[in-house]
């Protein structure tokens, strides 16, 4: 499996290595259901540069979601190592893992996963509460974030009262609640219409450029791929290639 190693710093010195916010080394994941074994990942290795906008692409069943969960700290590999900010996540105890998910990584899901019983602003304030931020300070910060994603004035609405695009924005706001270094978005535009999807992609791009947030998405969306810094292709449990958008002819590439 050849992939474009010119884009990676192999065995580089510490300063170069500190440019990687996430590293996955020979990660394997095996799911056992009864007697059958499914090898979702067969030794994938990923190096993600700090502050870049990375898209991960792959057909269904390729291990894309599994890899995504690994690099996001949502699951532990069967073999291999995942380093988030030079910390091996397999060594983390539950408190540290919770801290990681709370402060370092913001998650955005395809189906928004908002808490239906809470209003917008309460949803955004929830991770702040887990981080120990409460009260008026939290409220003001949450209002500020809602402004930034373009949801001014909708603070008290419940998710059921909002469109898909607006709900996704709330999800983005929630992911940004604790000013994380890393944003993990799983198919964020899949359930959105064209226009709203474009707005979300622009928002990510701005976060990346203006705030230096590392944005990692798993996606099939061509518009998103075009706006990324790098595109990683995964197939059959392994990284098949890494390219930049202009290196591909995106109109001819098969997306699935």
């Amino acid at each position, binding site marked *: 499996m050849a992939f474009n190693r010119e884009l990676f710093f192999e065995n580089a010195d510490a300063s170069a290595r500190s440019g990687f916010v996430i590293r996955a080394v020979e990660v394997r994941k095996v799911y056992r259901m009864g007697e059958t074994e499914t090898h979702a990942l067969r030794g994938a290795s990923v190096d993600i540069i700090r502050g870049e906008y990375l898209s991960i692409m792959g057909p269904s069943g390729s291990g894309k*979601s599994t890899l995504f*969960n690994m690099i996001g700290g*949502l*699951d532990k590999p069967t073999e291999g190592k995942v380093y988030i900010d030079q910390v091996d996540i397999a060594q983390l105890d*539950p408190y540290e893992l919770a*801290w990681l*998910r709370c402060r370092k990584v913001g998650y955005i899901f395809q189906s928004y996963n908002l808490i239906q*019983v809470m209003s917008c602003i309460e949803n955004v304030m*929830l991770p702040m509460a887990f*981080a120990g931020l409460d009260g008026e300070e939290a409220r003001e910060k949450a209002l500020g974030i809602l402004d930034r994603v373009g949801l001014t004035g909708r603070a008290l609405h419940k998710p059921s009262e909002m469109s898909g695009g607006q709900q996704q924005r709330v999800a983005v706001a929630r992911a940004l609640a604790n000013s994380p270094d890393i944003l993990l978005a799983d198919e964020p535009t899949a359930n959105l219409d064209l226009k709203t999807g474009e707005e979300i992609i622009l928002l990510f791009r701005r976060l990346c450029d203006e705030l230096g947030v590392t944005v990692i998405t798993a996606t099939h969306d061509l518009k998103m791929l075009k706006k990324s810094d790098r595109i990683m292709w995964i197939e059959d449990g392994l990284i098949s290639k890494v390219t930049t958008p202009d290196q591909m002819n995106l109109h001819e590439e098969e997306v699935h």
Partner: protein
Amino acid sequence: MSRAVQIAVQGIRIRLGRSLVTVSGVVLGIAFLMSNVAGQLISSSLAREKETRQIVTLMEALVRSEVGAASGKTLGIAVFGAMNRTEHLFLNRLSAMPFETIRITGGKCPRGIPCAPQDVGAGTYLLVVLGQDESAPVALDDLTRGMARVGLLDSVEARTYENRKPDGVKRELLFGKETVEQMARMQAQADQARFRTIWVAVISLFVTIISISNALLMSVTERIREIGTMKCLGALSAFIRRMFLIESAFIGFAGSVAGMLLGSLIPILIYGWMFGFDLLFRELSYARLAASCAGCVVVGTLLSMVAAIYPANFAARMVPASALRSNV
């Protein structure tokens, strides 16, 4: 901690419908327990009254066995001295029986009965002697003169009779040895019944625990996505566990209070209707009742929390990746 409380309260509010199902399980279980406990308590408070009524029923049965069908017959009652409560009740029962005529001498006439100062015995089928004064000798000859059939029931064993029983007068004791044996038998039956009800109450508590566990497990399964999301936002496993335990504590407390109220109401109503509410409220030991109520609420709340341990652990141990992947 307070955040866990807040989320638990919100959770209950939103899932009120399904929470009600769990709550009703607790209510029924605790109501059953409480009705047994309160029933025992009230029953023992009214024990004397119950005994009295049992005796009176026996005495009534004795009269019936002596007399057969009451209609068309005359009953004679002679009262010597003051009557005790048992005899008062017995007198009420007798006056309610469908005798053709009841003649009474010596005591106060119950309403609607002709009182004849003498000649109680004329045409009388049966003579009943009541009253606690055993010293004054009773002139049996006078009393039984003219009786159609000579039979005598007496409530006091040691009553003195002038001239010994005339021939042919059968004297039965209303409250004799047989009734004592019968009372002992009834007491043994009551004890057995009490043991059975306690056993049933214990089993029903187990059923309550199991149904709460089941309802909570269903709740956890429904909320898998939500739990996974919370973990992604940084919630600790301990937080998730605490959330479910608090939720079940609230449900348990609310259900126990409701069950306690329902369960204590029913025996009060039943015993009040049987024995009279004034007697009931007079005799009832309020201290013991309050203690039983508090005990039942505590038991119900604790049981709910115990029932929640397995579901809460199940929720707390979920891996976010699999939680979010689920199709529920």
